[in-house]
């Protein structure tokens, strides 16, 4: 495996060159990727909201936001500003703690999960050995926040919404984890970087989606359900529960929910890209071009370009998936709660189990292809 661009090493080495102690240099480095990923994630979520508006408008023969910036790109900014300066209203009999903490508990785990999203060999905040597992476990914290918000609002719609969120999240956590397990089994690792590396080398043909088509679909459906996207957006089902758990929220609290849902969506798309669509790998391996042009892979310029391509590729794949999710949202009706649970427990779970078994069998039979 090639090392690629390693900003951390370069950064630390440069600081050490200025005469700093290695420990201090490390400490100085630490917050940088976090801040960058935080800003990046927020930005991507904003882009996602803009895309949602534009794609839905296009699918409905409308124009969508037009006058706030070119093509209305400043609309998310306007949204944020509006929601920030809007009055925060707390219902008189709401539980102040639960009501205020709810949105925070929803957003934090999502942001935390961005830790493990890799954009290149070393372009990841932390390359944890438990990578995907961390995400699976952390993302199940969010429903607690939803439940808190729903229960704390002292509103029956909110309560129903919160309960639905909890039920839905629990049911789809399982097939999601099983789908991830199949991937982990093939990659012999839970680390997202390893998973991508395992798919590398053959371009588009090496991606996990070919080896795990069923797993891919299960993961995609379950991820949509986890994000409460439209076929599965029961917790905030507008027509039934007004706005579900966020009925009573305004201003910042509402913004946190809103941001949380889009952050989560972008995260899910990124993870699908990482787990199934080869992460930062281009459809045709970059090395082919590099060696074809007679350049060295370790050339600094090539390294920078490769890293840039990697980031672009990851985001491109993620946004392609995001587009699909948005289009799907504006095409299909919503399922009912019992149908949702049926789908989760009676369809996805058995299929995921079978998928896992088949993967294990294939792994034993064809260790070369399925990661022996």
């Amino acid at each position, binding site marked *: 495996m090639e090392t690629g661009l390693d900003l951390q090493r370069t950064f630390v080495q440069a600081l050490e060159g200025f005469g700093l102690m290695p420990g201090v240099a490390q400490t100085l480095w630490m917050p940088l990727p976090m801040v960058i990923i935080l800003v990046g994630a927020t930005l991507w979520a904003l882009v996602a909201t803009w895309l949602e508006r534009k794609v839905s408008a296009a*699918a409905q023969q409308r124009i969508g936001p037009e006058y706030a910036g070119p093509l209305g790109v400043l609309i998310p900014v306007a949204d944020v500003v509006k929601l920030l300066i809007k009055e925060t209203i707390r219902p008189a009999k709401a539980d102040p703690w639960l009501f205020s903490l709810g949105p925070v508990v929803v957003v934090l785990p999502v942001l935390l999960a961005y830790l493990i999203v890799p954009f290149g060999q070393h372009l990841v905040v932390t390359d944890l050995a438990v990578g995907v597992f961390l995400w699976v476990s952390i993302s199940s914290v969010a429903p607690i926040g939803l439940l808190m918000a729903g229960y704390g609002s002292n509103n029956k719609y909110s309560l*129903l919404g919160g309960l639905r969120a909890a039920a839905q999240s629990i049911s789809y956590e399982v097939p999601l984890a099983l789908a991830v397990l199949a991937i982990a089994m093939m990659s012999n690792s839970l680390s997202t970087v390893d998973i991508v590396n395992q798919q590398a080398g053959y371009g588009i043909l090496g991606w996990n989606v070919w080896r795990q088509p069923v797993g891919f679909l299960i993961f995609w459906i379950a991820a949509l359900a986890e994000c409460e996207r439209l*076929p599965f957006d029961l917790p905030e089902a507008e*027509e039934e529960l007004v706005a579900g758990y966020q009925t009573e929220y305004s201003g910042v609290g509402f913004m946190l929910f809103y941001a949380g849902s889009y952050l989560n969506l972008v995260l899910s798309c990124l993870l699908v890209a990482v787990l199934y669509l080869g992460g930062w790998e281009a459809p045709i391996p970059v090395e082919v071009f590099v060696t074809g042009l007679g350049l060295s892979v370790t050339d600094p310029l090539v390294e920078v370009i490769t890293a840039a391509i990697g980031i672009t590729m990851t985001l491109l794949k993620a946004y392609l998936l995001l587009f699909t999710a948005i289009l799907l949202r504006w095409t299909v*009706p*919503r399922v009912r*709660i*019992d149908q949702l649970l049926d789908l989760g427990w009676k369809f996805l779970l058995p299929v995921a189990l079978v998928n896992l078994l088949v993967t294990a069998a294939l792994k034993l039979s064809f260790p070369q292809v399925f990661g022996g």
Partner: protein
Amino acid sequence: MTLIETRTEPMVINMGPHHPSMHGVLRLIVTLDGENVIDCEPVLGYLHRSMEKIAENRTVVQYLPYVTRWDYLATMFTEAITVNAPEKLADVAVPRRARYIRVIMLELSRIASHLLWLGPFLADVGAQTPFFYIFREREMVYDLFEAATGMRMMHNYFRVGGVAADLPYGWVDKCEDFCTYFLPKVDEYEKLITNNPIFRKRVQGVGTLSREDAINWGMSGPMLRASGVNWDLRRVDHYEVYDDFDWAVQWHTDGDCFARYLVRIGEMRESCKIIQQALKGLPGGPYENLEAKRMGGGPKSEWNTFDYQFTGKKSAPNFKIPKGEHYVRVEAPKGELGIYVLGDDSPFPWRWKIRPPGFINLQVLPQLVRGMKVADIMAILGSIDVIMGEVDR
């Protein structure tokens, strides 16, 4: 193994009068056991304006602008019935051309109403996009209405003995254009909606109303026809000129929300066919406003005979409703829209009872939602197609 007995208190939840999917100002007091509906009680009256009392103090001419506010999505029908009631009581003859124009307008209005049923119905089960598509076509219907009547919704177009004005130049051409444009669009809706597995699961077998129940509860319109009764007042009563056209009554036997969907989709197609035939057979020149032909033909030409006028005789502002009583009805998109009128030879009716289809159809709602899920309330309510303007009047 013994089951642990859990006892939960039923939750009473108040949906409406301002709830996103209550179609205006309907209020439902729903008793829930978790996600299951135990009971539901509709509360009406938030839009009550006592239209019947108003009618008792208005001449027909004065009252006509009010009636489009009953069912504000199928406005032509309310006007038609308001005009029909005194017209038939006074035995006023209507020229054939006026009847054709009425039929065209009524069917356009039926399309508009069904379109604005389809969108919210799909929105009620969670799909927002058809809402925008139907508005595209509905705007066209309303553009046609605006050109002919002067307003998009509150037309005030029907008159005792005919219609207020003849069709404007080029209107027939554009209406035909609309028909040819609209039929493929219905196919497109069907492609988007009908076979969608999620939609099917949400509406099939939901809100099933048996034939006996439907009759006993006095259902009418698509509600009745979806429950397996071949009953369409256009066929039963032979009013206006519907017998001149070749069209089929849409009916299904399943009685569930999906059957109602199919009936309404089918009715849009049939309405479109009726319009096309009516435009072809429009008496007095296939296409244009007849004034030019009348002038060209001179005072004794056939163009000046009764059948080729758009209004038999312009009714006086103090048109007297003769003594007598009767019950007239039309097949409105929502069902049987009836008026019981009791005249006593004065400009004002003594009694003007409105039988709104939505009001009668809505009362079966608690029956249908009992034992269903919360989300089914919306699907069933959507499939009933209520407009609170006519329910509360």
